[in-house]
């Protein structure tokens, strides 16, 4: 490949950036706080894809990029690299999740019951256009129950194992410091399961949905049923210098188990992410469920879906096509002209 150095675009580049930022105007702490409080699900999505949990930084990234999600995730991932890793927390277990929402589409009577939590699943989707005419939309207040919901619930899979429907997996005893980490090691195939699940946790929501949807529509081997969907808060369990474990705070997490019948048992697919993002978890768990034995190059094949749902790489590759390709394109044109001229000199004999 050949490169040609050019100059002359400095002013245009600077003015182009100014033009982009001028549309957003001044960014203030108030604006960042407003984004944070008004759009928690967008903040969650950005934090999950950036694999960096901090609502303030996510809101700032959205403010600074005008809501371009790929740019927001990119700027957060870049910022993340400036920070030292201080500790690896103790692994989050399902039984320890402070649960806000837990439903199963597979079993009506799961232990702990069906708790809908915050959702629009059963609501009419009607745009509140009156707001635009000056009438504020004030949501009706929740009528709290007189007794609290149980804060902690076991996983549905644990209950199914008691009923001989699934085989409970052996617990992974890997020390937290030794858990494979795709931010520090290359993703190689066949992928380690820890790499697969981490990659899905930070995957692009739209990408995971597109490929997961392909599997759901019939291009996968297994039709998913949501065994358990949970929105919760996890304690970040860290260590004091004298060894005492404590929680440095809670973070929102979502997880999905999807299930399919396999012989006399049920087979599970799993996914979880930072923040509350149900579509991504169900889609990613569907990919996990379908990946075993998937044909090479299919939507549910591990290498295919892990590469193509990595949002920063895929969006970066896509937008790099906007950058000058004058030399490579000219070279293609040269080859095309050359072939054309040869063809006109030596016409191919008729068949």
């Amino acid at each position, binding site marked *: 490949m050949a490169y040609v150095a050019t100059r002359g675009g400095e002013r245009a580049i600077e003015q182009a950036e100014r033009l982009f930022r001028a549309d957003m105007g001044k960014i203030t702490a108030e604006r960042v706080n407003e984004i944070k409080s008004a759009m928690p699900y967008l903040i969650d999505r950005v934090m999950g894809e950036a694999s960096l949990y901090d609502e303030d930084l996510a809101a700032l990234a959205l403010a600074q990029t005008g809501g371009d999600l790929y740019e927001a995730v990119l700027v957060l991932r870049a910022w993340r690299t400036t920070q030292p890793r201080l500790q690896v927390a103790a692994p989050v277990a399902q039984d320890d999740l402070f649960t806000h929402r837990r439903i199963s589409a597979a079993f009506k009577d799961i232990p702990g019951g069906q708790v809908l939590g915050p*959702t629009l699943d059963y609501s009419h989707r009607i745009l509140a256009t009156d707001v635009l005419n000056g009438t504020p939309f004030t949501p009706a207040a929740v009528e*709290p129950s007189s007794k609290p*919901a149980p804060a902690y619930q076991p996983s549905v899979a644990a209950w199914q194992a008691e009923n001989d429907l699934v085989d409970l997996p052996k617990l992974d005893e890997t020390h937290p410091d030794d858990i494979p980490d795709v931010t520090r090691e290359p993703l190689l195939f066949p992928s380690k399961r820890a790499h697969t*699940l981490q990659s899905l946790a930070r995957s692009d929501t739209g990408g995971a949905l597109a490929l997961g949807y392909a599997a759901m529509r019939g291009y996968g081997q297994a039709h998913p049923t949501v065994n358990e969907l949970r929105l919760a808060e996890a304690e970040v369990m860290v260590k004091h210098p004298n060894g005492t474990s404590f*929680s440095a705070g809670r973070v929102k997490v979502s*997880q999905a188990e999807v299930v399919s019948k396999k012989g006399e048992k049920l087979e599970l697919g799993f996914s979880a992410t930072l923040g509350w993002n149900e579509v991504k978890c169900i889609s990613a768990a569907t990919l996990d469920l379908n990946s075993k034995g998937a044909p090479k190059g299919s939507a549910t094949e591990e290498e295919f879906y892990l590469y193509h749902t990595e949002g920063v790489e895929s969006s970066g590759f896509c937008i790099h096509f906007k950058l000058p390709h004058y030399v490579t394109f000219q070279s293609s044109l040269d080859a095309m002209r050359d072939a054309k001229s040869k063809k006109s000199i030596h016409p191919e004999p008729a068949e």
Partner: protein
Amino acid sequence: MATPHSETLTILARSGAEALKSFGEALIPQLGALEVRKSQTGLVMVPMRDTAQGTSFHLGEVLVSEAHIVQGETHGYGMRRGRDLEAAMAMALIDLALQVDVARQECSAFVAEQQSKHLAEDHDCLCRIEATRVDMETF
């Protein structure tokens, strides 16, 4: 099982930054000389266990602020979510004060007050969640 020290640190990490800072600041003159070893922001990687195959994997990193102070052989430590270094330092000061027996009564009262707030917040939250429980009726 949570120890009292573990519970105290968990409560302090969850406490409101302003309350923590104003209480922690008042301890500085009483504590006397101490060494500040760390006052920084950084990341904590959070792993999770998969229920399908039991594998531990990384969910992602959480931004935290950390403070580590030392007086003699005693370590005061603060780590909490977010980038408020002063709040992490205040947590470390209260942790140290409790260990070296400085303003113990006031510190314990502060921790107890914060714990009551957190319990009330959790209770309210869970009552709102309970309102969304489906009372399934099968026909």
